[in-house]
């Protein structure tokens, strides 16, 4: 790789357990990289149920775009109540109970099967807004993208997918994932070059970390661990990482000043500038790890 070329990875930051410090790490990493590679960094908040990166970064928003899913609208004059739509629906979002045709939009996944199988063409797919994508800028040069699912709606993934569509693959992207290991986290981590798993060194942290590592394995995404609140808990996480050959990329100590800074909306880099260098070094190390993996797999 040439000296003048910015290594452009997409890095997701996930955890399993909530509250371990994903957003702290994601926003700190993005700001540190923006200093090192100005104008080359995007921060993407993929926790569409509870976005919070904006609280630390104070972006100036330039666009709010609605996200739609398709739901069935039934013409009851054409419908023969045959029930094929209900049979086809995996989500029980459409039902034919005697002469009543019922739709449950909050259960609908927008797959279109009902409209497809309807023998009389009685079903039209119409748009329903489920959330929005917010685009803006942090400071002069860092791009900000976030998603927000409407309160009361259950399916996060359509909004997550709409957010990820805005990512510029020619620049560095740091994706703040939601907690857990279910669909919203998987949709975020999938197809990223590397996943940083932030954990706390406690039995609870370890238990959820194992789920998260397993999920990354199934998604085929290389991963490493940051231990946050280092000093509390026990050696379980460190022992697990050693046994599994998982890199411990960084250890962030348990320090009151970090919690105080975070509660003021400040990131690691702002609380202690030397962490900016540590974060950039970590990124460069991840670039090497991903690069050597690609060579091993025969990818040019």
């Amino acid at each position, binding site marked *: 790789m040439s000296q003048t070329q910015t290594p452009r990875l997409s890095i997701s930051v996930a955890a399993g357990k909530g509250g371990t410090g994903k957003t702290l790490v994601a926003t700190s990493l993005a700001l540190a990289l923006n200093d090192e590679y100005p104008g080359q960094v995007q921060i993407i908040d993929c926790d569409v149920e509870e976005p919070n990166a904006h609280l630390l970064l104070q972006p100036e928003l330039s666009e709010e775009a609605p996200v739609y899913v398709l739901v069935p609208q039934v013409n009851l004059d054409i419908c023969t109540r045959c029930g094929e739509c209900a049979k086809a629906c995996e989500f*029980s979002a459409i*039902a034919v*109970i005697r002469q009543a045709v019922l739709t449950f939009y909050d259960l609908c996944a927008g797959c279109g099967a009902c409209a497809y199988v309807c023998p009389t063409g009685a079903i039209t797919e119409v748009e329903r807004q489920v959330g929005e994508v917010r685009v803006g800028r942090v400071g002069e040069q860092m791009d900000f993208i976030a998603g927000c699912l409407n309160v009361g709606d259950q399916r996060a993934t359509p909004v997550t997918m709409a957010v990820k569509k805005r990512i510029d693959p020619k620049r560095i992207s740091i994706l703040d994932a939601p907690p857990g290991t279910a669909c919203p986290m998987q949709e975020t981590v999938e197809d990223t070059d590397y996943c940083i798993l932030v954990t706390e060194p406690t039995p609870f942290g370890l238990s959820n970390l194992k789920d998260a590592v397993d999920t990354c394995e199934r998604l085929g995404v290389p991963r490493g661990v940051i231990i946050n609140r280092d000093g509390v808990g026990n050696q379980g996480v460190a022992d697990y990482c050693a046994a599994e050959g998982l890199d411990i990329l960084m250890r962030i100590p348990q320090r009151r000043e970090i919690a105080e800074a975070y509660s003021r909306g400040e990131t690691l880099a702002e609380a202690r500038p030397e962490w900016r260098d540590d974060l950039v070094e970590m990124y460069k190390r991840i670039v090497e790890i991903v690069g050597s993996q690609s060579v091993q797999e025969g990818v040019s």
Partner: protein
Amino acid sequence: MKVAVSSKGKDLGAPVDPRCGRCPYFVIVDTETMTAEGVKNPGALAGTGAGVAAAQVIANAGADVVISTLVGPNTFAALKQGGITVYGGVGGNVEAVVTKFKNGELQELEDPNAELDAGARRRG
């Protein structure tokens, strides 16, 4: 007429399962002949939308009446809109509750009497 009873088993002697949306079976009883047939409830395995799936299988079985203990909002709405009468709050076995129904001892439900997904949080 045909009556559907939420049940743990497939015949007249089976105990009532209190969770209308998430019971394992419905026993469909012909009140004239007192013959019974058990049908599987797809709502038993559903994460969400259990009540809708249950209502669909009840309607497909040709039942005019449903008898159960706890009926949540999705189940209730789907059945009511289809014109199927709902009775709740009963226990015992299938044969006993159908007999009570025939004797006019049951009260029709005007509203759901359970919370959404309540049946997912208990084993019945």
